[in-house]
């Protein structure tokens, strides 16, 4: 990667990563009542992963793990209300008093959003794996190129 030779880029990405993660967490929680949500949070985290890949920094690698756990979590949250005879995807909302934050209201939509975040992030990690290393799992060894070179 070209960026890995530039200390400015590397330092910048390293400094920006925690900020971006804070923004992603904000979006995840804001999604209940304001613009945001699991998908947007996943995209922000995916952007962090992409930047870190370009800068040659450490990044998450387990794409299938992320996707699988995300889908299982989402499906479980969607399905559980049916056990009590409620419709699919029905939401349970509860609120508790916390010492610093005051009254916090949240519901079963939160783990659902976390699952969506995991899926989006997993897909971006899989995409980067496939683009950066053609022999990595998930990517084909590109027989088309070989054919055309002949």
């Amino acid at each position, binding site marked *: 990667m070209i960026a890995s030779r530039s200390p400015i880029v590397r330092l910048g990405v390293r400094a920006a990563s925690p900020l971006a993660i804070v923004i992603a967490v904000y979006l995840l929680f804001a999604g209940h009542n304001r613009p945001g949500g699991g998908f947007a949070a996943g995209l922000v985290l995916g952007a962090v992963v992409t930047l870190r890949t370009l800068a040659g920094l450490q990044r998450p690698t387990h794409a*299938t793990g992320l*996707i699988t756990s995300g889908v299982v979590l989402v*499906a479980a949250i969607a399905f559980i209300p049916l056990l009590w005879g409620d*419709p699919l995807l029905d939401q349970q909302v509860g609120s508790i008093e916390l010492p610093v934050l005051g009254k916090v209201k949240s519901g079963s939509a939160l783990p659902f959003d976390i699952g969506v975040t995991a899926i989006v992030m997993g897909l971006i990690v899989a995409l980067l794996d496939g683009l950066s290393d053609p022999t990595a799992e998930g990517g*084909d060894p590109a027989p088309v190129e070989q054919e055309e070179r002949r």
Partner: protein
Amino acid sequence: MNTLIALTIIAPLLGAATGLAFRTNSRARDASTLLGTGVAAAAAVWILVRVADTGSHVMAVGGWNPELGIVLVADLFAALVLPVALLIIFVVEIFAIGQRRTAWGANPELAGPLLGVLTAGVSLAMLTGDLFTLFVAFELILVSSYVLLTHQGQRGQIRSGMTYVVMNLLASTLFLLGLAVVYAATGTVNMALLAERVPELPTGVRVGIGAWFFVVFGTKAAIFPLFSWLPDSYPTAPTTITAVFAGLLTKIGVYAMIRFHTLTGMDDLGTIMLLIAGATMVIGAIGALAQSDVKRILSFHIVSQIGYMLMGLGLFSAAGTAGAILFLVHHMPVKTVLFLVGGLIENHQGTSALDRSGGLAARRPLIAALFAVPALSLAGLPPFSGFVAKFAVISAGIEQEATPIVVVALFAGALTLLSMTKIWLGVFWGPSPELAAAPARAVGNRRTMVAATGLAVAGTLAISLFAGTLFELSQRASEDLRSPAAYISEVTS
């Protein structure tokens, strides 16, 4: 009932997710994807039993008001088509397990989970009660189909895959624009509310919306001027993938068309639909005659058969719609079986080209028998399911005195029989060619493949056996669609 409806969508998705997690352990992976589809198919059969007994069931997802939220509606039409579709995918997945070690097999690490996602999309497309969720379901199906079609990365697949992707993206874009038009005109995308509000629109707007969605669904269904992407792209994919696509994808387009255009009462489009139906039938059948490869002949037949369903719909009578529904139910398994047999042929002699094969009836009589039943059924010969379905459509045409389309339909039926004869002569009779006698590559587990094909053939025979019941159910489903008052009150209440 809520649980059953949810299972048809969630079980295949979960199967896909766990299949992805087990990607290197082939046994666990196959077990989880098969289990996902199997559970969904069982749930779908149970839904059919319940709906036929007690009437349709509506589930408002998340408990939202239908005007705002998503509704899943298991009415008789959905309940009738869904189990057939899911059982087909289940059988094809078994076939794929037998075939995966061959050169024609799909990459199982990808194909299993992606078929799971596609299955979830199929369930959603059939059960959804609003147009936007239908769009989402179409996208779910299409995105996985893009990958399934091209994942082997061979040159022919990429080239024809491009046409497929471009045509379908275009149709999806038109779909989205059409949704905007519908929402602007009526203020809703819920089908029950549309059934109420669209007939009250000015004629120009109403017919415009109908024609717009006719083009959108017609592109997916491969009707006459919009079918060119199909015969090019389908034969290049691995057999199992083609079998699922052939059995299901175009039929989802027809399904959406039958639902949307009958519910909203688009009777004004009847004449143009009949014209296009006739052209689709004849051009598909003639195109099939000109081909010299089993898979290409069968691909052109998909186009031709779509014409019959469109004819049933275009008549806009209760009998016509019932015929179209019955034809849909008959056609999905028969077409899939024919492609599976095509896969068996390819597996045995290393090619599916007619001029390089022959004499298979003597060497493999079982395969010949497995081909003969669905082929005769497709051509519409009694006592097979194709006869019942064609009879229903054509008698509806006679009832309405639509003589030209009836004549065209009978003529296209004869052409179909002719091209089936062509496959029979080329592949099963005649001398065995020497060069193709011993396919050098690994051949996979033939017993699994033959068993899966046999199971599917038995399924098509069961359809002709229970034709009476199925026809009666189709009639009830068609009456529900033609007079949507009950549908509207069930969804909106």
